[in-house]
Structures are given as structure tokens and as C-alpha cells.
């Protein structure tokens, strides 16, 4: 799945974050999500979606070779990750996140759960749908 965005459609509900935390950590905790919704209010009045586009800069940055690719998707090897955070700083989309209970950064693995529950089509699968 290639996750694509139509930010203007986002209503800020954060259902994507809830299901992400549930699916990837088996915890009801959107603070462990691999994507983030940021509101820009009162002006200009819209939501921004921070999510990984699998560009691979993180993997290239990691000194410990803790980030590997399978079929165009980058995964973090939690055993190798030292939690240094260099990948987070390098991420051009600012789409890697830190949670106080986790050593490794949290990164999107393109499971598509958020897309499934985004009623608004703000997150969609570019492989199956043209731009919305």
C-alpha cells in the first residue's frame, strides 16, 4: 500500500492514530501512533498530517543499520536500534515519533489500518485509488 494524503479533507478526528497504536502496539494509545495530526487553529484553520512516505532517508542515516527495507517499506529493528534519534532528525517529513515508554522511534510500516478507518479519505491508498 502506498499511503497518500488529501489534507484538506482531514477533520482531525485522530481515529487513524488510535487504530495505529492498537494495531502496532496492541495498546489503546494514539500517542504510540506512527502518524500525527496537527491542527493549525484559529488561523489558517486546517489540519496537517505527518506521515512517512517511505523515502528511506532514515535508513541511510542510521549508523547502526537498524532500519531495513522490505518491498519499499522501511522497518526499524528494535534490537539494533540504540534510540539515538538521528533518523528522527534526518526525516524530511518529520514523521518519526518518540514515546517515553519506547526506546526506538515509532515509524510507519504501511499496514494501511489508518486508511481503512479514515472516513474522510484524507488518508488513502494511492495504489488502488487515483488522487481524490
Amino acid at each position, binding site marked *: 500500500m502506498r499511503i497518500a494524503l488529501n489534507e*484538506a479533507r482531514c477533520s482531525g478526528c485522530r481515529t487513524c492514530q488510535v487504530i495505529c497504536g492498537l494495531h502496532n502496539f496492541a495498546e489503546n494509545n494514539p*500517542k504510540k501512533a506512527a502518524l500525527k495530526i496537527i491542527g493549525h487553529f484559529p488561523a489558517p484553520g486546517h489540519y496537517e498530517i505527518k506521515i512517512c512516505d517511505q523515502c528511506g532517508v532514515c535508513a541511510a542515516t542510521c549508523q547502526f543499520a537498524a532500519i531495513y527495507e522490505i518491498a519499499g517499506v522501511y522497518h526499524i529493528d528494535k534490537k539494533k536500534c540504540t534510540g539515538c534519534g538521528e533518523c528522527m532528525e534526518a526525516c524530511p517529513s518529520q514523521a518519526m515519533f518518540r514515546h517515553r515508554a519506547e526506546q526506538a522511534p515509532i515509524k510507519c510500516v504501511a499496514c494501511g489500518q489508518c486508511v*481503512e478507518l479514515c472516513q474522510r479519505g484524507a488518508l488513502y491508498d494511492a495504489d488502488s485509488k487515483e488522487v481524490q
Partner: protein
Amino acid sequence: MNGYGGNVLRLNLSTGEVKVQPLGVEMAREWIGQRGFIAKILWDELKPGIDPLGPDNKLVMSTGPLAGTLVPAGGKVSFGAKSPATGIYGESCMGGHIAAEMKYAGYDVIILEGAAAKPSYLYIEDDKVEIRDAAHVWGKGAMQAEKALKDELGEDFQICTIGPAGEKLVKYACISHDFGRQAGRTGMGTVMGSKNIKAIAICGSKSIPLADMTTAVAKGKEMLKGCFAKENLDEWQDYGTAGVPVWANKIGAFPTKNFQSSYLEGNEALDGKIMREKMVINDKGCFGCPSPCGKYCYVKEYDVYTEGPEYETTALIAGSCVFTDIEQVGYMNYLCDEMGLDTISAGNVIGFAMECFEKGIITTEQVGREIKFGDVDSFKFLAEQITTRQGIGNVLAEGVKYAAEQFGRGSTNFAIQIKGLEWSGYESRSAPSNMLAYMTCDLGAHHSRAWSVTHDMAVGRKVLEGKAQKVVELQHIRPFFDLIGCCRLQWVEIGFELEHYPEIFRYITGFDYSQDDLMKISEKVWNLTRAFAWREIEDYGRKYDYPPARFYEEAVTSGPNAGDTLTKEALEYLLDDYYNLRGWNKNGLPTREKLEQMGLGFVVQELQGLSRKLA
């Protein structure tokens, strides 16, 4: 505890003491959450007769077990206290994201006691709780203050604030959050202001334990997708409640010119479609919402941003004060929101003042200028006078009931309130069940508990039989959503089925309750808040349940229901029927038998201790 944040956070603002106590299983099982917790805590902890704006009152913020989980719209929080507007049980519910955030920080309930010596705000980051100086945001508009604190503390904080109206103790000040969501009713912002608390900022990082994660997630997904599939979802999310004003006019229920009429000439210009074209820039929802009703607007004409106007705001500002330009309504919505005024009460009070002026009951001398219906400057002037408590604003800031008592000359007849709370957006002379819903709402004249205009339409608008039954039923269902931390609009507006909730409630909490059991708990809370009012006011009862005389002495002046009134006899019939169904006496007071049957033996004891005569 499964489904819960797990703790009660108690702050004594006078001493600075912070206490965290685990939420008891009994408390959760018996009272579910949110409004249930609030009612129980206020009953247990408030002494009757205290000053609502004194340090003895407590402001209780609470959410429910479904909030913050994968259910449709689990984003509601309520605030409760003894109301400065009514002197009885007060409570108001709000959406946004702070309900979920509280739970991630580990709290189901936050209790504010005493009063801070100087302007302060609460900083809550998981277990770190501080009472901080708020001098730099005191005096700021509600949204400006939220923005300033967000910039200071970070995007991850969810923040609720009061505006200048709350600071100045205007009796209908609201608590504001997420740049356009408000807990507007019964003066909860006033209580917050009386405690010198400008804001509550929360950031949590914890997980909510679920009783059965796999089934809860599967059911949650099923519920969300059930909402996504509803036929009228698209229309609902395009217009939200802004689609309602034109309908309300068509059926003659729009509170027009301070409720003289139920039809506003030119109302078509307020339609959601026109609003969407002219000003909506974003569809904005609360936490977990599958059907976002927030229409976030940029009002070009006035260069302001505002969420809404939603139906109630349009009803009381456009209807009651007579405006048919949606951009003007958007601007006045913005003004009220920044000042921290509840748009319902503010619109109601200002419409009343305009009528008093038109009738010569108040004069240019008293007001300081001419005021008239349909004039933005008049509205703005009055809103500012109220917020700063200057001149006539100091009287109007006390609410419409008090203002009418001061102005006299028959104005009480058209001070549209019950129990001291200004009437919200439905003129009901042609809708007996809805009239009864407002009359018997535990908070005062408000639609949140029961709203039944469509029932009146379905079974006959002049019919009285069976209307009380419907009101009783709705007074259990609608506030049930305020026990669990969820929005009710998926059920009300897009027709999402009620049956799903008990099931997911079970997977999340592990408490095995049927829908009937949950409705019984809702009924228990209803009896408790009625008893709360009686504990406060010795002669409480039937006489507090009547609408203003306008509704039974004057006829609707125009529109499809022109000529309609409800007679006093009809009102008596409705009340008799209602009290009877509730198991209360003729005076509308719970009987010993009813209270005991509801498991409220402790209420019986206390009322008897105060020499209240229980039948």
C-alpha cells in the same frame, strides 16, 4: 481498571494540595462515568446552601469509559458544579480532544476545590500536576488564550480555557476548547473564573486498558464503518447542524424575536448551503468522530475565524435577535466565543434586552445608546457591556431572569427561561412534548436531555397523551451518552443504532450490563439531580417547572404555527402525567419509595435529615 483512566485527581486551589486517588470499582460500576460521577460527587461533597461562586463550590470535570477508545465519537467531557445561574445542579458537556487526553494522562475525574489566590492555570502532564501562574493569559479571549498556551506548552497539550466573561463572573460564561467547542450551559466557565483558573492544559502518554482488546477493536471498527455507511452522512458532514435552521422555520419552531414567533422572515439566507459557500473552510470533528459536524469558518466580511455558527447559535443570535445574514451571525458567534459567553444564553439575554428597549421598558439613558433587533452594533455593544459588566451589562450579566426582575413592568412574562437558565433554540408552543422536555430538564430550559419536536410532529402537535412517556424515555437515552463519554449525534442525526453501545461497553469495561441496566442507571442519575435541587431549595417542586407566561398567554405571532399557544391546563396535564410516570408526587418530588427503588437510600436519609417531607 478496564476502560478507565483509573484515577481521580483532586486539587485544592486554596492550599495548593494535589491528591491522586484511584477510581473505585464500586464508583465505576454504580455510576459509569462523566455525568454519573459528577452527580454523585456533587451530592456527596457539596454542602447545601453554599455560594456557587465561593470556595466551597467544586468544579468537577469528568469523562466516561468509552472516551479515548476506538468507538464512534468518544470525545465528550462534562463539567459540573452547583450552578451560579440556577442555584441547583449544573452541568455542561463539551467535545474536542481533551476528554481522551485526560484518560491518557490517567484521570477520569478532575476535581477543583477552593480558589486560587491569583490567576492561575493547571498544568497536567501525566503524573506531573502543577498550579501555574496565568498572569500572561488573564484577560485574553478564550481562543487567544488557548493559542498562547499551545504555543508555549506544545502541540501535544489539549487545553480548555475561559474568556473575559468567565473572569468577570458573568453567569453564563462557558468553558472553551479546541478553538470552537464549548461547555456552554449553566455557568461552568463562571465557576472556573471564580476559582481564578484561566485554563486547564493536559497532556497524557498512557494507554487505556481494555477488558477484551480483540473484540473491542473488532466491534469498534464495525461501529465506525456502520456510521460511515449511513445514507445521510454526507449531507450531515457538509452542513452539520447548520442545515437545521431552515427546517426549524419550516415547521415553525425557530425562536424568533425573543420567542414572539417561531418563524423568521428571510431565514432561507441562513441555510447551511449558503453558509458553506460563503464561509466554511474546513470540516472539523471531535476525537474519534465519524461524522464531523464542526463547520470551521473564515468570515471574510469581518476577517475573523470561528467554528460554526452551529444550530443553537444561529437560533438564539439570528432568531432571537433577528438577523438573516449568515456572515453577521458568524461574526457575533466569534465575538461570543472569544469573550467566553455561552451563545445560547447571550443570544437569549440580548434578544430580551432588545425587546425591552423596543417596548420602552429600558431606555436610551439606561442603556447608553439605542439598541434594536437586527443590528450588529447593538449586539456587539451589549455583549461587550455584559462581558465587562459595565452599565446595563452588569444587570444582563446575571441572566434573563434576574434582569427581568430588575426591569419589571411585565418583562418577566417574556424572560424566556426556566429555573434561571435561558431557553435554548426551539420555540415549543406547537410542540407539547418538547415544551415538557424543557420544563422538566434538570438543568433548566435546555435541549440536551430530551428533545422531541419530531415526536410531536409524528404523533400530532396538539396531542397531549403519551407525550410525557416519550420525554421520560428520551431523558434516559440522551443523557446516557453523557455517562459513557460519547457524542449522541451519531444516534440522533445519522441514525446509528443504540444497541451497539452496551455491547462495546462490555468489551471495553468488562461490566456486563444490558441496555435496560444502563437506562436504569441513567434514571438513577435523573432522580439524584432532582433531589439535589430539592436539597438546595426547600420549596422546590412543580412551581419551578413552568415556562414563562409568554408561552401560555401569548400566541405565536407569525409563520406556520401563528396563533398557537399551550394553555395552562395543558401544561398541568403534561406535568401530572410526567410526575406520575416518574414515580414522583404531585409536586414533582421523588418519593421515598422511588428513591429506594433506585438504590438512592442515602438520598432519602439526607433529605429526611433536612426535614424534607418525603411522600
